[in-house]
């Protein structure tokens, strides 16, 4: 591949120290190009959040990375010490969290929470950081941004808080934004707007993004490229349109069939057939046997 890369993950493996070294990630590789949204899809426990946390250097103590490399720009992240990583990520990577209700500090005003990074990493004065924050709130179509800046989080609705968090994520013009299921905590009507908003902000700021979700419908709306995981192993990856319209792997096919679409309503839930699951399990067992044996 010759296209420029913003982030690449190469052969990342991780095990759980909680479950007798059970594998959590199995030789995961993926590449995010500048300005593209890369979807990380899979059912619960597939390892999506583990990948996101590994990029941020925040793997839980009981998860151990055994192999692989994470390269942002020209820097390998896993070999940095905590301090170097902090400085690098602080300015270049941002997170849009899952639950807007808990991701803002309840005892700090919105203004303080939107401007602290700008002042710390970009040398902004209080005044210029404030102006920048107001611009960003404007970009996420927040009404009365001046008033919102003076508010504490509890004075804002969930949707408004997620807008604040999205605005804040783009404040430092990061190269990469990581969004871990940013809409699952919101109600359905708000979800769509928030997805559109993330897309618009990402396009405007030309930011690369990793978008974690278990919903192929969301992937279809927002992602340029997808990596599909099952139990920590990449099952299929490619451009969104290719993967959704011409799925190659049986697991992908089953998932695509199970996802409701406006032109093809689904009656109830279509489970992934047992035969497909068995095939996936066999594939993973084969992989584990090859690496351990």
């Amino acid at each position, binding site marked *: 591949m010759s296209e420029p890369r913003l982030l690449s993950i190469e052969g990342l493996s991780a095990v759980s120290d909680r479950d007798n070294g059970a594998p959590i990630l199995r030789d995961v590789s993926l590449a995010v190009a500048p300005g593209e949204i890369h979807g990380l899809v899979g059912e619960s426990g597939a390892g999506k959040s583990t990948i996101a946390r590994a990029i*941020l250097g925040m793997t839980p103590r009981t998860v151990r990375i055994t192999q692989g490399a994470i390269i942002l720009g020209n820097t390998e992240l896993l070999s940095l010490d905590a301090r170097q990583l902090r400085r690098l*990520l602080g300015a270049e990577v941002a*997170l849009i969290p899952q639950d807007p209700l*808990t991701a*803002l500090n309840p*005892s*700090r005003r919105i203004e303080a929470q939107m401007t*602290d*990074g700008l002042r710390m990493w970009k040398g902004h004065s209080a005044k210029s950081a404030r102006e920048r924050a107001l611009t960003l709130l404007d970009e996420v179509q927040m009404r009365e941004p001046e008033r919102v800046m003076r508010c504490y989080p*509890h004075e804002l609705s969930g949707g408004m808080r997620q807008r604040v968090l999205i605005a804040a994520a783009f404040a430092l013009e990061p190269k990469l934004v990581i969004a871990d299921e940013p809409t699952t905590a919101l109600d359905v009507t708000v979800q769509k707007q928030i997805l559109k908003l993330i897309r618009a902000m990402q396009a405007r700021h030309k930011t690369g993004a990793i978008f974690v979700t278990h919903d192929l419908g969301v992937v279809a709306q927002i992602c340029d490229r997808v990596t599909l995981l099952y139990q920590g192993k990449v099952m299929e990856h490619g451009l969104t349109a290719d993967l959704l319209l011409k799925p190659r792997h049986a697991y992908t096919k089953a998932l695509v069939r199970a996802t409701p679409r406006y032109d093809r309503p689904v009656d109830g839930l279509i489970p992934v057939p047992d035969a497909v699951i068995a095939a996936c399990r066999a594939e993973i067992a084969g992989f584990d046997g090859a690496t351990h044996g």
Partner: protein
Amino acid sequence: MIAGAAHRAAMMAVTLFGVALVVFVLLRVAPGDPIAMMIGPGASPADIVALRAHYGLDGSLPMQFAVWLGAMLHGDFGTSISLRRDVVALIGERLPATLELAFCALGVALVLGIALAVIGTLGKRRAGEAVVDGATGLLLAIPDFVWALLLVLLFGVAVPLFPMSGRVDPSLGAQFHTPFYLLEALVTGQGAAVRDAAAHLVMPVLALALPLAAIIARVLKGALDEAMVQDYVLLARVKGFSELRIVTREALRNAIGPTLALTGVQFTFLLGGTVIVERIFSFPGLGNMAIEGVINRDLPLIQGIVLTFGFLFILTNLVVDLTVVGLNPKLRHG
């Protein structure tokens, strides 16, 4: 808001009345006759009757209570039997000493307790946490008066660093115009007097502050541990802030509320602790005078002092409630 304030004021009045009643009854049913203790052998029965009347100890008990209460409402707490001086004046002289002592101890306890909690949180799962947990355990296991004795042995006898008794060294000849010696010396900028008053405070303040600091450290560290796993802390880490900054700017604000509420409650215990600590260090405060009063069965003085303490307790609770509301944005705007 106004209704709330009026309600609180009424509750305070009721509580104080209760305290007055309890003190009065307890002191009357306790054995010992103050008049019998003060009269000389040659006193006539008429003298005794006159003395009783003078100190408000004649008439039936309800009568005495009513008279005492009525006088108090006019700011008259009676005359000390043993010191033969106005109780209000006596309390006015001694209360400032106790307040200086108690507030210095509170300040030291807060600074020390918060520092310990922050250090313990920063050193989570490393040596720092173990040291802090051990230290708070030790501080907590030893009560204030034992600390007082240990400190006397340590800094008074073994390594005589600090004076062991009194508020100031009379030989320095410092003149004070108010009963707040330390405060006055600070405000007027008398360096020597500040050092002298502070040196006299070191040991009694530490004796009172160390156990409270341990309580503050324990509770605050628990609250910080809880705050440090919240999502907003994760987000602050992604923003690249240092752990120290995250603990002090993100977690502390959310963790400190319950700690301050508890500190307020504990401060009333600290006030109670001044009685024995002042005694040990011959510190001329209210507590020391209370013990003299009890020894001499000086009913008006004891009643006055106990009511003063009761008032301080009630005031403390009020301040705590207001602080907790002030610190929590949700309550503040609610």
